């Protein structure tokens, strides 16, 4: 039973009534007699108190490899039930952070609580309640899909009577039922990835870590994996922490995103808020190298990289005319003008002056890297 209190729209009298979530109850104002309906919807305030319970609490987490501070004093919280994104370029320290949270690696200093257990003192308890999909391949490719899942459920102590049911269930979820008894070696990259996601779910983890779940997948398969992740959130109601260096992925999937660079969080919030903070749209002017100096003087607030002028404006469509006139008046030749709605990449660019994906990391490079990077 929830008690709801609100003001009568007619005479402003405070009215209280009780109901359950989802109820619509007719109410009559005791003072002016106005009839109305009280809706017991999940309102924002309710949501807040619900999601405020935390699944992951990180405080001062640090990892130093020899001289390199791979993870530098990270602190953040992940709320129960949300998809939390860890967005950053290669080498930012995402995998290292995940490895520490999953107890595969000891932090140099700092610590974290996952599912209410300390990752250092109660690593076994943490491992019981998490699921993990590694960045690099981690299936036994000589075994069948079902055997891989079978081994996993045994390792996680899933009851024998439950095993078959759950294996069939997760195979169904990732649409691999038809290939259940094929050797994993014969699977495509996308199928292996899906199988790994399925495997991470068999023991019904409370928190699921996904380390670059779509790395090296073609765009279509990537979309497919996104669908599964959203389905997981909806059907299993688990907390998901995922890393990625694809900003559109973070934008699409994540409730909140932490942008990480050189082991530090440089921004944290909902994708919308992060983009809004940029101050709206971007106008991009391609200019000749000779005009760059001039442009620096004229567009004082702009960011200029090479021969591109980036202007943050509220509404690009309306303001582009003014900008072009200003350029013309100051004899800055505009080769091309473009309008861009902000993306998370712009957020990163704005904060660091670099693109999030340095170099043109194409699919083949990434596959190569994925093979090469399989570490312990």
């Amino acid at each position, binding site marked *: 039973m929830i008690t709801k209190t609100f003001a009568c729209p007619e005479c402003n009298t405070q009215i209280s009534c009780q109901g359950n979530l989802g109820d619509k109850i007719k109410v009559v104002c005791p003072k002016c007699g106005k009839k109305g309906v009280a809706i017991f919807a999940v309102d924002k305030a309710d949501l807040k108190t619900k999601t405020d319970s935390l699944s992951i609490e990180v405080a001062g987490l640090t990892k130093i490899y020899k001289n390199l501070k791979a993870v530098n004093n990270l602190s953040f919280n992940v709320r129960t039930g949300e998809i939390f994104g860890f967005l950053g370029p290669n080498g930012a320290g995402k995998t290292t952070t995940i490895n520490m949270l999953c107890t595969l690696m000891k932090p140099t200093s700092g610590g974290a609580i996952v599912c209410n257990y300390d990752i250092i003192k109660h690593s076994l308890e943490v*491992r019981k309640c998490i699921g*993990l999909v590694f960045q690099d391949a981690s299936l036994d490719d000589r075994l069948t899909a079902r055997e891989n899942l079978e081994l996993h459920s045994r390792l996680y102590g899933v009851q024998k009577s439950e095993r078959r049911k759950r294996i069939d269930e997760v195979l169904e979820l990732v649409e691999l039922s038809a290939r259940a008894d094929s050797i994993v070696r014969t699977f495509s990259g996308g199928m292996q990835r899906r199988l790994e996601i399925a495997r991470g779910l068999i023991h019904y983890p409370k928190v699921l870590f996904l380390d670059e779940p779509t790395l090296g997948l073609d765009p279509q398969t990537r979309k497919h994996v996104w669908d599964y992740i959203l389905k997981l959130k909806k059907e299993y109601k688990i907390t998901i922490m995922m890393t990625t260096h694809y900003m559109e992925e973070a934008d699409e999937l994540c409730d909140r995103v932490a942008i990480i660079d050189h082991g530090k969080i440089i921004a944290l919030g909902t994708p919308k808020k992060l983009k809004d903070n940029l101050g709206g749209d971007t106008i991009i002017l391609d200019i000749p190298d000779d005009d760059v100096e001039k442009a620096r003087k004229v567009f004082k607030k702009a960011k200029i990289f090479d021969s591109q002028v980036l202007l943050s404006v509220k509404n690009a469509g309306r303001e582009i005319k003014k900008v072009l006139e200003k350029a013309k008046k100051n004899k800055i030749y505009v080769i091309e003008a473009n309008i861009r709605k902000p993306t998370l990449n712009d957020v990163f660019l704005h904060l660091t002056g670099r693109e999030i994906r340095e170099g043109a990391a194409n699919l083949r490079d990434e596959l190569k890297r994925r093979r090469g990077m399989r570490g312990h």
Partner: protein
Amino acid sequence: MRELEAVYTVWLREMIRYYRAKERILASLAMPIFWLFIFGSGIRAPVFGGQVDYTSFIAPGVIVMALMFTSMHSGISVIWDRELGFMKEMLVAPVSRISIVIGKSLGGATTALIQGTIIFLLIFGIQNLYSEYFSGVRINISTFLIVLPLMVLISLGIVGIGISIASLLDTLEGFGLIMNFIVMPMFFLSGALFPINNLPEWIRVVTYIDPITYAVESLRFVMIGFSSINFVLSFSVIFVFTFSMILIATYLFNRRS
């Protein structure tokens, strides 16, 4: 209970992989069979004062060779699991690392045992067909019942060496190096192929340090009734060796991850 299930799971995986890799079974039988036939029939010198023919003399050594090849494979498989990424899957599971090492060791020992038994049966078959070969080997159920636990013990010890090496090294190449420079000499210096008493003094010293010597000698005593080293001594050495190797392997594996 949970940990027992984990040991069983890791063992089960080794068994499935062994079953799937039939070429591996043949490959690790090739060398011992080669030795049995080529050297066994090529060198006809009698040993132990003419009481035993050479084929019988090397039979236990060849079994140890089969055990070594197969057991060392557990070390390779640890490195392989690391490269494959499956090691992380095991390490992040809510089970202790000790269960993982024990599961892997038992898996390695079981496959070695199967290979060893195949060689044993092969010797039995040849002895039945051509009585001049392996005439000195006592093959019957009771011999086999003593040979069996001995093979388990020896295999576990060598598996321990394999896992220790794998925990200290990063690459398969490194493992191959150690294999060729340490493990193979351990076999050839063990007195598996020639009587210890005939060796020059300085080699004999090395032979007495080599744990494989005691493995071969204990097995030889059980199989043909002769040995250069007292059975109680060789058995004790093997027992202590295996026990320490498993402890060392567990420690090194744990430390690595």
